[in-house]
């Protein structure tokens, strides 16, 4: 037990442990604090852009523009999901000759990004600062309303989504949907202010849409390779609590994706298709939902821990938006624990940072489990 907790009554001990876990999850360095992660992400992309600038005058122009900006604006500009994708494509072309973007398209997009980078509120994908904000400031990102740009960036962005999710139809959010999402973000922030703020800050763009095939139903997902993008089904927007939960849940996947850029979590050469496969015990009777690669085990462990804390907070504040919050907190904590124990068998597939990440999650879970 932590120093100083032994003399507290049981209820206070649980509260103190929960607060301590929330603080590490939301604000620990290097795996929690969103501001720290955002600055490190910006540094990664600045380095990649410097590489690209060796062969692209547009990249050099964007670098010059970024040098003229303050740190906060620079970080905000480099949060843009399409700019990140574009810089990655340019870097992979420069370093590895991978042909995922034509040089002319690369230059056009980087030139547009430089033109838009007047302040942190204007980015490649939100050129005219017209995107619908998810929160009171752009910190929580935007909702795709389809008219953020003059066309080139918007087209490229939707193409990048469709590359990863064939048969998907992106739709522009209407005013009601934007308001539901904004209420969901506020609700999540009210329940767990520090944790929700830390999570939602990893969202750059919430995109609504559905699959052309009517039987391909989903609620929400994220896309490795398209950081900061959160895809939601409009069906999730039936209520504020569902919207809040979907945003919070997926934002933690986005945090995980961002962590992987600044502290690569997996051993060199790790690939999903060659990864060992793990079926969580709660999917044993439904193998179609099992067979998870190791990276999914890690990101799910991270999300389940965050949800365990979130629902503990819901339960402790009697927030009426969710029923059975205590039971859900228990379920999430149990699953996170199972995944963290299982991850111990696959540490060879992780980098030193990955092992450190798993150890930090296990320490938090130990605190939470002791508090029960």
């Amino acid at each position: 037990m932590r120093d100083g907790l032994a003399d507290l009554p049981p209820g206070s001990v649980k509260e103190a442990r929960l607060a301590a876990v929330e603080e590490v999850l939301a604000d620990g360095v290097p795996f929690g604090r969103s501001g720290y992660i955002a600055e490190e992400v910006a540094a990664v992309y600045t380095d990649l852009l410097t590489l690209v600038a060796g062969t692209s005058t547009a990249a050099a122009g964007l670098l010059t523009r970024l040098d003229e900006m303050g740190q906060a604006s620079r970080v905000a500009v480099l949060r843009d999901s399409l700019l990140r994708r574009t810089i990655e494509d340019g870097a992979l072309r420069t370093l590895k000759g991978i042909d995922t973007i034509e040089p002319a398209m690369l230059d056009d997009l980087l030139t547009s990004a430089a033109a838009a980078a007047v302040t942190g509120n204007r980015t490649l994908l939100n050129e005219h600062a017209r995107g619908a904000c998810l929160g009171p400031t752009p910190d929580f990102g935007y909702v795709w309303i389809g008219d953020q740009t003059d066309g080139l960036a918007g087209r490229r962005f939707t193409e990048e989504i469709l590359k990863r999710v064939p048969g998907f139809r992106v739709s522009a959010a209407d005013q009601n949907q934007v308001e539901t999402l904004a209420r969901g973000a506020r609700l999540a922030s009210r329940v767990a202010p520090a944790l929700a703020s830390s999570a939602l800050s990893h969202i750059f763009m919430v995109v609504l849409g559905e699959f052309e095939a009517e039987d391909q139903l989903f609620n929400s997902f994220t896309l490795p390779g398209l950081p900061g993008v959160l895809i939601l089904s409009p069906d999730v927007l039936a209520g504020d609590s569902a919207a809040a939960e979907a945003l919070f849940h997926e934002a933690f996947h986005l945090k995980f994706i961002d962590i992987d850029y600044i502290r690569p979590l997996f051993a060199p050469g790790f690939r999903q298709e060659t990864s060992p496969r793990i079926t969580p015990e709660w999917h044993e009777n439904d193998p179609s939902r099992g067979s998870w690669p190791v990276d999914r085990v890690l990101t799910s462990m991270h999300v389940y821990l965050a949800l365990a804390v979130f629902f503990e907070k819901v339960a402790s504040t009697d927030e009426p938006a969710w029923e059975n919050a205590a039971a859900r907190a228990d379920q999430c904590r149990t699953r996170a624990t199972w995944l963290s124990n299982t991850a111990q068998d696959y540490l060879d597939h992780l980098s030193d940072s990955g092992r450190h990440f798993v150890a930090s999650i296990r320490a938090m879970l130990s605190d939470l489990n002791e508090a029960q």
Partner: protein
Amino acid sequence: MTEAGSAQQATQGSGSPGPDPRAELLDVLIRGLEMARRKSEPGIPGEQPLELFCTYFYAETGTLLCPFLYYHA
């Protein structure tokens, strides 16, 4: 160069002495690209899009606790 070929090359290093400080990051970038390639070419065996970091959690809890959230992907 194809993405699959480059993915192998990324893990082999540049051939220069000492560790490549960009190798781990390159691996992250290549994994993001491979995801795109696999998802954009129908017929290639691999994971379905919805298996990627998605919220099966909702389907599970929907069944248990919150029926209106039940969607089976």
